[in-house]
């Protein structure tokens, strides 16, 4: 047995670990040695080391045992062994949170901090501040002030850094030490300078003027510490961003001058600051890029990495600025650090010409298996960007992506590839078939349910419209046989779409559906039965409503209304129209393709903005019985920025009413506003029913007041209206220092800008994945058509954007993107009008001198058709 242990020790090499088999209880037992007199420093030191080691390994100490050990340890302050004393400080810091009554060492620490031994003073300050709370801070304030300006650098640094830690806890006390910190900033020691600067900034960061002054002072006097310079560059670039100062400001000059600093750290910080500035021109970038270029050939890996990573960022916005570095980047492709090589290649992919793409792709595929997932994602993102730039290269990319898809990799990586392929398919109709084929192959052996369902959905959407839809059926049905419930259900839905769109496939799809109805899972069976019955009807309208363009309601809203319905049993059937609609997801343009960025936040299903509003409004008694919230607009500013009061309005539309929510902010610190409300004067026959004032509006705390307006019932076409708005309130002046308001106030008012209600406020965006089917579903009974000439519009793009923002409807079938070099275009828009009427618009646009537009509107309600046409005209 003993022999076996020996062997094990030997196996772990020369470094067998003396701490390996430590037992907490044994160590605590040993800690009794602390109480022996005289103290044996060597033994005690060893025991303290063991305790700290155990804590570091994550051993859990109970409060009682920790407190016991802590109190025993305090006796060791009697020894004058330096290392032992220092280890005591460490123990105090480590145990500050787990032991009770740690403050009993305060006096010992205060003694050390003010004593003669310089070696003790710094660490004692840091330990003391670790255990000090707000109430005790006052007691040591005097010592802290002295320590900050102490001549010994380690004492001063320790005091400054500890003060910085305590800013979070008691800002007001630490703020009083500003003068001392100021004095420390002019110290000769570079670390003291750095720490003083950091503390000063943290104390003043809310006062832009003070920060500017401080910066001016230090840029003139010049600091020695490279760390301090880095800090100053960061402060300066933050100020530049906040003040939106131009690049002729002294702040920018300072940053640029740092490009010539003798420390690489400072030079890099400055270059990176310039690169990250918003709206930086190529001329300003040039010096930064050229220092980064020099760094590319540095022998230090960290520097090369830093340089190429920053260049990669530049390449995203200003590829031309980086072209000069192409040669240096080429050299980095073979760098032994694969992270550097990957970044170099992806940068080159952005800056290089179309002809170099093939070569780079070949190079990258030679080592893609060696790099970490994070960087693989970077590669995929670079490819995705490349596809948008050079659509003709999609075949190279596609084969490369499919190879990557076959390799091993984590979920994030696979998802990036699948997303990339899907976006290529959507952008390039020619690549659709190859792309779908690769995806089909991938789902044959895909362990990620999310990706499999996503791809099946994609197949269902795109597959039926390809020339040979039948070849996808096999892949989809394989899923039904082999996969988990979620994937099987998705496969059933995809199958149904094939059956609905391709008449010749319908009989075979029905057979497959029949088999799915035997599935062991409820959801899969339900779906199969449902689709089976819908398909057997062979009606286009049914197919459109139930297979192509599913429900467009918000899921939390549906849940809530259903719950409500079950609470109040009634004879009436449940009406889908009472459910609030889902706000169509705003398709984000992936402009920001961040390199090596993997957000660690888990994706949560957050309630939509509208669901939050619905909840808030329902809580106000005056607004009961208005029905579900139909639409909430984006906030509209009713004041200029930087005025005394800032007011913005959100328009909430209900079936027959509108609520205007005014978010008010008071920016005057010497006033308290009360009973704040906004008086609205409508231009049309709108009727203001209620004003709900905000009771209090103190300085810089936003509050909301509301107005309820009834929409005219007799004239359903009156959709637009202008309101002139005035804010009325009671002012009570306040003492700006204490914030106490005076007893009596006076009434006042403030004129706001006019508020417009337009047709867009009455229409909710709804995405119809299959516009053609929806168009047929509504039918042409209530169709109206009219032609308009848009004289002022010069391009088709402009016309499309104008129409979309004016009507506030959802563009479908990617018709919001006008292909280049075309002079005619068809725009499809879908939405739901207030009251739950579907409305579809088809706008044919032709470009001649101006733009001619033929608008066709279909809806389930005649009034709606009229409203749309009237408002376009």
């Amino acid at each position: 047995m003993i022999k076996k242990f020996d062997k094990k020790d030997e196996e772990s090499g020369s470094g067998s670990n003396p701490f390996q088999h430590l037992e907490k209880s044994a160590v605590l037992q040993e800690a009794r040695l602390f109480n022996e007199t005289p103290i044996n420093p060597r033994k005690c030191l060893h025991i303290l080391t063991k305790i700290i080691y155990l804590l570091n390994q994550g051993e859990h100490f109970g409060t009682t045992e920790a407190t016991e050990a802590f109190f025993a340890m305090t006796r060791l302050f009697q020894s004058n062994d330096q290392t032992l004393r220092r280890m005591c400080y460490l123990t105090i810091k480590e145990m500050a949170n787990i032991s009770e009554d740690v403050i009993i060492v305060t006096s010992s620490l205060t003694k050390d901090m003010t004593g003669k031994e310089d070696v003790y003073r710094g660490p004692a300050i840091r330990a003391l501040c670790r255990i000090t709370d707000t109430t005790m801070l006052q007691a040591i304030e005097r010592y802290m002030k002295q320590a900050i300006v102490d001549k010994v650098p380690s004492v001063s640094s320790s005091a400054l850094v500890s003060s910085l830690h305590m800013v979070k806890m008691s800002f007001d006390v630490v703020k009083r030490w500003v003068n001392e910190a100021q004095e420390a900033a002019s110290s000769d020691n570079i670390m003291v300078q750095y720490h003083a600067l950091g503390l000063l900034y943290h104390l003043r960061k809310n006062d832009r003027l003070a920060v500017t002054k401080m910066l001016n002072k230090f840029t003139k006097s010049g600091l020695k510490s490279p760390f301090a310079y880095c800090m100053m560059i960061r402060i300066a670039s933050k100020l530049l961003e906040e003040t939106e100062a131009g690049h002729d400001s002294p702040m920018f000059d300072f940053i640029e001058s740092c490009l010539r600093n003798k420390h690489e750290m400072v030079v890099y910080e400055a270059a990176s600051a310039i690169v990250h500035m918003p709206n930086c021109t190529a001329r300003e970038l040039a010096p930064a890029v050229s220092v980064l270029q020099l760094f590319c050939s540095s022998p230090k890996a960290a520097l090369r990495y830093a340089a190429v990573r920053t260049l990669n960022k530049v390449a995203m916005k200003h590829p031309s600025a980086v072209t000069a570095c192409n040669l240096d980047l080429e050299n980095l492709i073979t760098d032994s650090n694969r992270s550097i090589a990957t970044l170099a290649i992806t940068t080159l992919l952005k800056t290089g010409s179309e002809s170099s793409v093939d070569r780079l792709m070949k190079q990258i595929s030679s080592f893609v298996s060696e790099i970490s997932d994070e960087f693989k994602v970077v590669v995929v993102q670079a490819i995705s960007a490349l596809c948008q730039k050079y659509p003709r290269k999609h075949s190279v990319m596609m084969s490369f992506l499919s190879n990557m898809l076959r390799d091993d990799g984590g979920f994030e990586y696979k998802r990036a590839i699948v997303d990339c392929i899907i976006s290529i398919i959507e952008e390039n109709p020619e690549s659709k078939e190859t792309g779908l084929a690769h995806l089909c192959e991938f789902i044959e052996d895909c362990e990620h349910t999310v990706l499999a369902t996503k791809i099946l959905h994609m197949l269902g959407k795109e597959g039926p419209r390809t020339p040979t839809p039948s070849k996808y059926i096999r892949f989809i049905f394989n899923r039904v046989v082999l996969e988990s419930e979620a994937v099987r259900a998705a496969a059933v839905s995809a199958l149904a779409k094939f059956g609905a769109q391709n008449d010749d496939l319908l009989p075979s799809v029905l057979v497959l559906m029949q088999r799915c109805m035997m599935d062991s899972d409820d959801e899969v069976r339900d779906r199969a039965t449902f689709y089976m019955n819908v398909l057997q009807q062979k009606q286009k309208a049914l197919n459109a409503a139930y297979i192509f363009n599913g429900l467009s309601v918000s899921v939390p809203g549906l849940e809530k209304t259903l719950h409500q319905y079950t609470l109040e049993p009634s004879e009436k059937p449940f009406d889908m129209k009472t459910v609030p609609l889902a706000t169509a997801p705003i398709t984000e343009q992936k402009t920001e393709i961040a390199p090596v960025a993997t957000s660690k936040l888990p994706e949560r299903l957050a309630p939509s903005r509208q669901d939050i509003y619905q909840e808030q409004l329902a809580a106000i008694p005056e607004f009961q019985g208005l029905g579900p919230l139909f639409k909430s607009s984006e906030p509209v500013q009713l004041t200029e920025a930087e005025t005394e009061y800032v007011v913005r309005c959100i328009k909430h539309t209900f079936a027959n009413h509108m609520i205007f929510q005014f978010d008010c902010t008071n920016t005057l610190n010497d006033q308290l506003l009360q009973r704040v409300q906004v008086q609205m004067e409508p231009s049309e026959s709108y009727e203001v029913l209620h004003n709900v004032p905000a009771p209090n509006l103190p300085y810089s705390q936003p509050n909301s007041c509301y107005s309820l307006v009834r929409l005219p019932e007799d004239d359903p076409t009156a959709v637009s209206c202008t309101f002139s708005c005035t804010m009325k309130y009671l002012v009570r002046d306040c003492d700006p220092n204490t914030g106490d308001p005076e007893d009596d106030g006076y009434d006042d008012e403030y004129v706001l800008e006019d508020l417009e209600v337009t047709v867009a406020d009455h229409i909710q965006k709804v995405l119809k994945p299959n516009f053609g089917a929806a168009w047929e579903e509504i039918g042409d009974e209530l169709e109206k058509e009219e032609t308009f000439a848009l004289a002022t519009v010069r391009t088709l793009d402009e016309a499309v954007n104008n129409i979309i923002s004016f009507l506030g409807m959802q563009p479908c079938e990617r018709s919001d993107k006008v292909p280049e070099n075309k002079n005619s275009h068809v725009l499809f828009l879908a939405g739901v009008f207030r009251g739950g009427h579907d409305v579809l618009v088809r706008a044919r646009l032709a470009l001649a001198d101006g733009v001619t537009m033929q608008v066709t509107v279909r809806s389930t309600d005649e009034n709606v058709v009229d409203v749309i046409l009237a408002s376009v005209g």
Partner: protein
Amino acid sequence: MDSAAVEPSLYTVKAVFILDNDGNRLLSKYYDPELYPSMKEQKNFETNIFNKTHKADNEISFLEGMTIVYKSSIDLFFYVVGSAQENELMLMAVLNCLFESLSQMLRKNVEKRTLLDNMDGVFLVVDEIIDGGVILESDPQQVIEKVNYRADDNPLSEQSVAQHITEKLALTSNVLQSAKEQIKWSILK
């Protein structure tokens, strides 16, 4: 990560740790309470980092959204972790300072056994270089002066070296012996 400027702050270092050549933690400090708050997450993170870095001596890497600079010496691995936006060279300065200080303190014997024998000194060195995530000192000379640690009170004298070697040799022959035994048994089976 977008281009938005980082909030200027002295809190540069997110974590620092020293692992042995099996990836076991010898020392580790996490300075950002939001980053891996539990011991399990921390050890998991360390294992991940170790697995991806111990094979190639690459000095710098980007993992789990963090910039990581590292260095190895015989059977030890030193890591300094900072946010994605952090100045890589600042992290490098911390790593170099840590390594140089330990190297001086341990008289160039930067290996696991010596490190563990002087663990108290190692704790003190780390404490002098970083305080709560703020770089306290970056000059190894200063760190050594401040820690003022007498590495191993009885440094290896000639005699003890010889003794050490004989011990080692004895052990090795022991191992060889047992290996032979094992092979013999396995053949017999």
